[in-house]
């Protein structure tokens, strides 16, 4: 199944694109598993994603902890902690 991945703020800048589509490896995979998979690509991906403690995530537009299984979600967003308001 296809999973759309969105990047925001400095995660987006380091990776150099704002979104992409990947084949979801396994519905039991967690957000953290996918972060590890992407970081392994090296370059900007490693720069953006190598420290998961600095990352936050949303699945289908809902904030989730990084250890959440991706399940049937169609959209995963990765970004730093929010700074609105």
């Amino acid at each position, binding site marked *: 199944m296809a999973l759309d991945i*969105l990047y925001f*703020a400095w995660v987006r800048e380091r990776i150099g694109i704002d979104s992409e589509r990947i084949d979801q490896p396994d519905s039991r995979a967690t957000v953290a598993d996918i972060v590890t998979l992407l970081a392994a690509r090296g370059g900007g991906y490693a720069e953006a994603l190598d420290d998961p403690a600095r990352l936050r995530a949303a699945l289908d*537009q809902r904030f989730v902890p990084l250890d959440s299984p991706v399940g049937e979600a169609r959209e995963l967003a990765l*970004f730093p902690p929010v*700074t609105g*308001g």
Partner: protein
Amino acid sequence: MKRIAVQPEDFDAAAELAALEALGGGGVASFIGIVRGEGGLVALELEHYPAMTEPQVDRIVDQALERWPLLGVTVIHRVGRLEPGARIVFVGTASRHRTAALESCAFLIDWLKSHAPFWKKEYFADGEGRWVVARAEDEAKAAGWQSF
């Protein structure tokens, strides 16, 4: 009344207040956030997650409506490039009770800071851009409402 807007345009604070005042409650509380021009800041760029922003702000507003007896809530958050002095955010609440209006207004701005998908980048006179780092204090403030 529930009014939520995420937009690049400025807003008319007087009109927003007037709409809340017209609801017949005894009190209207509001908070307006403004870009500070400190340290040579020339602009603030506000990025957001379009598909998520309004639904997420809506959830935050619903929490306020569950928690306090409110007649109306208005949240307007700007995105894009904003210069010093520009308004960033408006939160307004109307209630029969001043405490409900004031507390819910504080809750909403605290939760927008830590639970809505916005990211600020600061630009300085030398052209350099710097992403604003989330403050642990803001997280703590929002978490404080959990046990309220």
